[in-house]
Every structure is written in structure tokens, then in C-alpha cells.
């Protein structure tokens, strides 16, 4: 058997034992929760962000930042087993009035950033073994699947990321590698990004989430739990998929 499948129960609890996983946008929100959870469950998180203070400064738009972070990670741990392509930003406003440079800026971070990172991480995984093994998780959004007036630039960037997970996941699998690519699609989440993007007090007001069937916005940890599942061998037959974490928000 060329793949890891037979699991001991402990793998369900400490799902990422020994795996070296690079996380972008790890200074706050979903990225910070994911990096912390990887460490709690026996993995090695390489936490990166555009802000200094973590393992590496990584502006996802800069190819040389990616190269440096991957090189340093391999020098220290001799491999990369996973990538959480999570760095993102938000830009609200009517798309008709949106300045082209703001539209481009958002796509450079989300779409080009993920593209640059996945390309480089896959190349590294292929150096490690044949076939190559690994798991890549992209932070997308339910807005990549459902329309969101006023957030068209963000929603269309997330739609690109959702399809990127599907297309690259299928492509890598068909080439014989066991590098899996999946997207997580959160609905409303309590993160600094959302607090900043929404009107003051909005995220703290339960009434804001009255249209979420389960009645609440997710915490960063709720999304991180699903990312951990997708990084682990528990999901070793999942690729090109989208895991929704939205309390039922996108149902109706």
C-alpha cells in the first residue's frame, strides 16, 4: 500500500504528529488558531505573517519571501508536509465604485499569494519523495460560493481560491502524487479582520447573527479544527473539496 491509512485512535486526537506545516497569516485570527492547534496536537507549525514577530516574515506576494521561508524550514526540519494558505484581507464597497488598484491589491494577496505558495510548496514536497505526500489547505469563504453584495471583490477572490483547491487537487492526484488540496469555507467568524471590516460593535452583537441557523458566528478555533482534520491522515481520501463551516448560514 502506497499510502497511510490504518490509523490508531490516537491519530484522531493528535492528528498531525510530527508533521511540519507552514501557516501564512498566522499573526491573528484563523491562522493564529491553526498554528497553535498544530503545536498542541504534536505537529510543528512554522508560523509566518507579513507582520514581524513569528517564525518568518512572509509577505505572500513576494516570491523571494516564500523561497526564504521554505529554505529555512527545510534547513531546520528537513521537510515540509503541509501548507495552510491563509493570509488574506478584506475590502468592502460597491464594485461599481471600486478603484481598480484596490481590486488588484486584494487579488494579489489572496489569489496570487496562494498560487505562489502552492507552486513552491509542491516543488519542495516533490523533492522529498516519489510519489510526493502532503496536505494543502486554502482558507476560502462561503462567499466563494454564494453572492455577497458589497463584497464582490472579496467574494470573487475567494471563488478563485475555491476553484484553485479543486483544480490543483485533481491535477496533483492524477499526476500520481498524494498531495491533497482542500479549501475551508467559513461563514461569519470572530476574527480581528472581521471586527475591522464590520461596523463598530457588529461582531459582538448576537443579533448580527440571527440569520445563522445555529445562531452564532464561529470562533477561529472552529475553523482551525476543520483545517486540522484536512491536514491529518484522517482525510487522506479527500482532495479537491470544500469544507463549509458556517452554522448553516449559506443554506437559505
Amino acid at each position, binding site marked *: 500500500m502506497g499510502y497511510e491509512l490504518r490509523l490508531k485512535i490516537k491519530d*484522531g486526537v493528535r492528528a498531525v504528529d510530527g508533521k511540519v506545516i507552514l501557516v501564512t497569516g498566522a499573526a491573528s485570527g484563523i491562522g493564529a488558531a491553526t498554528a497553535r492547534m498544530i503545536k498542541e496536537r504534536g505537529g510543528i507549525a512554522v508560523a509566518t505573517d507579513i507582520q514581524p514577530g513569528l517564525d518568518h516574515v512572509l509577505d505572500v506576494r513576494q516570491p523571494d519571501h516564500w523561497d526564504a521561508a521554505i529554505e529555512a524550514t527545510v534547513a531546520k526540519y528537513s521537510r515540509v508536509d503541509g501548507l495552510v494558505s491563509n493570509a488574506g484581507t478584506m475590502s468592502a464597497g460597491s464594485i461599481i465604485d471600486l478603484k481598480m488598484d484596490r481590486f488588484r491589491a486584494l487579488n494579489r494577496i489572496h489569489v496570487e499569494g496562494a498560487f505562489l505558495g502552492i507552486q513552491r510548496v509542491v516543488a519542495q514536497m516533490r523533492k522529498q519523495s516519489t510519489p510526493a505526500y502532503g496536505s494543502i489547505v486554502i482558507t476560502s469563504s462561503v462567499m466563494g460560493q454564494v453572492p455577497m453584495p458589497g463584497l464582490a471583490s472579496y467574494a470573487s477572490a475567494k471563488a478563485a481560491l475555491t476553484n484553485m483547491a479543486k483544480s490543483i487537487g485533481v491535477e496533483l492526484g492524477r499526476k500520481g502524487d498524494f498531495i491533497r488540496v482542500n479549501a475551508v469555507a467559513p461563514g461569519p467568524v470572530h476574527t480581528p479582520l472581521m471586527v475591522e471590516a464590520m461596523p463598530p460593535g457588529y461582531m459582538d452583537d448576537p443579533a448580527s447573527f440571527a440569520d445563522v441557523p*445555529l445562531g452564532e458566528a*464561529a470562533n477561529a478555533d472552529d475553523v482551525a479544527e476543520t483545517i486540522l482534520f484536512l491536514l491529518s491522515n484522517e482525510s487522506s*481520501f*479527500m482532495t479537491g*473539496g470544500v469544507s463549509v463551516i458556517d*452554522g448553516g448560514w449559506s443554506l437559505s
Partner: protein
Amino acid sequence: MMVALKVALVTGATSGIGRAAAIRLGREGYHVICGGRNAERGAEVVSAIEGEGGIARFHAFDVMEEEDWATLAQSIISREGRLDVLVNSAGGFFSKPLPDTSLEEFRGLWTMDVESVVLGTKYGLRIMRDTRSAGSIINIGSLAGLIGIEDCVAYSPAKAAVIQFSKVAALEAARLDPPVRVNSLNPGVIWSDMITQSYGDSDEVRAFVMDGNALQRVGELEDIANAVAYLAGPQSRLVTGTAMVVDGGRGAD
């Protein structure tokens, strides 16, 4: 008797995905009620769970009979007093071109694959409501319910119904106090009795099944059991109304 352990009910637990899910939930520490028609195979699953130190009991019933569901619901309310997880896995399959498929065959599969899930979700929600259990219901659909599959003129639409039904049930279940979650879990082609009984158990079939997957391996029962454990537990506490796909990338393109 009220049990302190979390309680899971799995239909179709005597074979295939249901059996794998029951064993996995037993390992996760659930008290597992294994539902099925064949008592001999039911006893085997119970002893497999007990052999790993788990707790289980077998309940013989027919998922297509509403009276059987009512009896089972009463049994769980009075014996265990709670229901944390329900996996509606029982179902059937056949492959035949449409011109050769009779209405009886179509109805038969609809009853087995759709009505069983409707009844299961209905009584599962009643048990969870009456015992105030913050439960998770997992309905086993299929990739065939999301994409078209040749010669699956009954199976494919039946599984599509399971997926859509689960979304509606999720909205209703969210209104309960405490809320209950409902998701469909949709396997691609999984190497199981269902496949080998229909297509044969040969290297050629295995190669064909594998070839359609993006990931170059066949799907195993454990792959689905792993996803059941994810949808059952607190790690997915805000996941509801989703159609989760575990298919090795088969359906993504």
C-alpha cells in the same frame, strides 16, 4: 437507565460503511447502538466493538418500517436516555440502464435509500428533542447524488434527494433547543460489498475504480468512518447543512 457515555445509533451497521462507522464510533468512546436486520451479523459487529473495549448493543429493525423506528425511539429514550449521534447508513444500490429498469425497482430503491433516511432523521430528531441532546445526524449520500453516473437512474436521484433533504432537515434541526446538526456525507466509490456485489471483485474492477479517482488509490471504508467521526464530534460544532464529499477527488472535475 440513563447512560453517561455519549450514545450513537448507526443504521445498516451490519455491513459496509455502517459497520465501519459503528466500529469507529465505538473506538471514539460512544455507546453504540447497531441497527440492522441480520442478528447474526449484528452480533459480530457488537463483539468487534466490545473486543476493542467499547460498548455496543444490537437492535434488529427495518429502516423502511415506521413502526420499527417508533419502537426503537422508545427503546433509546427509556434505556439510554440520550442520542448524540445518528448515522443513517442503511441503503441499497443497483445499476441498470433506464429502458430496462422497472418502476417497481425504482420505487424499491427510493424506499430503501430515501424513505429510510427521512424516517431515520424524523425519529432521530424526536429522540434528540425529547432527551434534549445536542446531537449530530449524518446521512450517508453519495457522489452519485451530486454528479450524473451512468446506469444509476434510481440510485443517483435517490442520493440527490438525501443531500437536499438533509439541508432542509438541518434548518429545522437548528431550531431545537439545544440545536441539532444535520449533514450529508457523500462517498465516492468505496471498495465495499456494495461495489463488489454489483461489479465483481477483480483486479480489473479495482483498477477501474481507482482510475476514476484523482488520488490514485481506491476509497476504503475507514475513509468514510474517519469523516463520520469528524461530523459526529465537537470539532464540527458549527458545521450543519453541508454535503461533505469524500471521493479521492473523483467528482471535483
